[in-house]
């Protein structure tokens, strides 16, 4: 995985760097298939044929690689899910690479905001709804329905910045005091700027094979919710995350309370709490108490977003999910450096698209 943040290098350079880093451990000639993810390469970088661009870049840099490229998927989590599904359902020769890249910090905020609204259903975009707007409506409903105090959102952001300060590949490597979070400008009530993930550049690659790595995927799952946000059964809940996590945990034959470390979708701070609760780690409305007690810190009962999460590690949209897998993989191998969660043997990842219309969950375990 490349460093996440602002990069002067091109989209293709980021791709090359991520693949080079992955090939430090794996023989490129073993790759037979690549699942590729990128949110909006044509709109953001003028790449009209992203699959062709990936194939050209890979062929140029790695002549031994003869990979069939599929995609582009919209998030790294989605690409990874389909790669695992394919490997489990078919006899696949060789290894599979899941590759994701995003370059978006070179466009101005208004352009990026317009592109992000590609994730909003056209029927809702008609109202001027943006992702932060819909996320704010989720947040209002969540806080009110489950009696969660507003300052819980500040605690999530502060914790993730604390973790990112220990992550050399994070976008923001500094802690942010609670008062700075609480006084940051409102984006959409009640969400403030420091409750929202930034736009970031970055790329990541993950190679799935049968070579006896001591960390392996134990289970995975996908879930979906109503395409129109306002038609959900409960505005303050993420049914998709609950379904995805249910499949992943049952596939892995583990219970949520056995997980040591988890990376969850936190494009907006309240999402971290909602996703943890929907995945079964806590009852609805109770995750914030564990957060306040320090149980979700590195070294606590359950380390949550040790990388800093999307909020602080960064949010290259099409790469998210895969960045989380890289973090959990490192944690389970004891390679987490300053942010290593002691004794991590089982890890989980939850990745979502839009306002959790689709969600993917994965369980990884160390031998």
């Amino acid at each position, binding site marked *: 995985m490349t460093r996440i943040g602002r990069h002067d290098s091109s989209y293709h350079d980021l791709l090359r760097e991520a693949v080079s880093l992955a090939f430090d451990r794996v023989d490129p000639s073993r790759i037979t298939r690549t699942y590729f993810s990128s949110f909006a390469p044509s709109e953001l970088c003028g790449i009209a044929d992203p699959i062709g661009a990936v194939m050209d870049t890979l062929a140029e840099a790695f002549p031994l690689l003869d990979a069939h490229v599929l995609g582009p998927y919209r998030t790294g989590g989605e690409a990874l899910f389909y790669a695992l599904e394919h490997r489990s359902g078919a006899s696949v020769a060789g290894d599979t690479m899941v590759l994701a890249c995003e370059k978006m910090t070179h466009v101005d905020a208004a352009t990026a905001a317009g592109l992000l609204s590609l994730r909003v259903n056209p029927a809702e975009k008609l109202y001027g709804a943006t992702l932060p707007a819909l996320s704010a409506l989720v947040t209002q*409903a969540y806080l009110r329905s489950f009696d969660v105090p507003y300052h819980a959102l500040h605690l999530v952001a502060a914790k993730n910045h604390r973790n990112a300060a220990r992550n050399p590949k994070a976008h923001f490597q500094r802690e942010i005091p609670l008062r700075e979070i609480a006084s940051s400008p409102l984006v959409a009530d009640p969400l403030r700027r420091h409750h929202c993930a930034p736009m970031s550049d970055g790329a990541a690659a993950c190679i799935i094979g049968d070579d006896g790595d001591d960390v392996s995927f134990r289970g995975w799952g996908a879930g979906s919710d109503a395409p129109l946000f306002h038609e959900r059964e409960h505005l303050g809940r993420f049914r998709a995350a609950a379904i995805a996590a249910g499949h992943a945990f049952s596939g892995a034959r583990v219970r949520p309370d056995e997980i040591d470390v988890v990376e969850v979708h936190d494009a907006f701070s309240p999402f971290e709490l909602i996703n943890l609760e929907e995945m079964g780690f806590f009852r609805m409305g109770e995750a914030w108490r564990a957060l306040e007690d320090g149980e979700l810190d590195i070294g606590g009962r359950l380390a949550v977003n040790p990388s800093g999460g999307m909020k602080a590690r960064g949010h290259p949209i099409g790469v998210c999910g895969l960045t989380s897998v890289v973090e959990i993989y490192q944690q389970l191998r004891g390679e987490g450096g300053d942010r290593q969660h002691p004794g991590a043997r089982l890890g989980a990842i939850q990745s979502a698209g839009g306002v959790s219309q689709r969600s993917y969950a994965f369980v990884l375990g160390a031998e």
Partner: protein
Amino acid sequence: MRLPRRIPAHRCSHGCLWLHEHLYCPNCRTRLERVNIASAAVLVSHTTVRVNPTGEPIRLGVARTTTGATTLCVIRGVVRGNGRDRVVLVLRDGRFHALGRRARLDSDWQASASSRAQGQSAPRRHSRR
């Protein structure tokens, strides 16, 4: 000025109500028929979007009618934002507007509402065709 007391909706054979068009009921996959339902609703969630591509703040909410259908809506007038505000839904330019207390309707709105009250066709929502 009198506002329309009913708004168009879609109902399946099992009674599910939808304010937005669907070819089939998202719950039970049966065909939907057009019905009119009461426009009284409760604003269950709301926000003011301060950073958006238009540059102007927008007040958005989700309203649930007394018959149980929900929709995204643009908020007009005063609401407390406690999840229990009573509003009246009005369909205009393909969007539902939730009118709270002291909602000020400009002359354009009044003309449009008057024409509907006089039996002229209401503005159509965006067509699927």
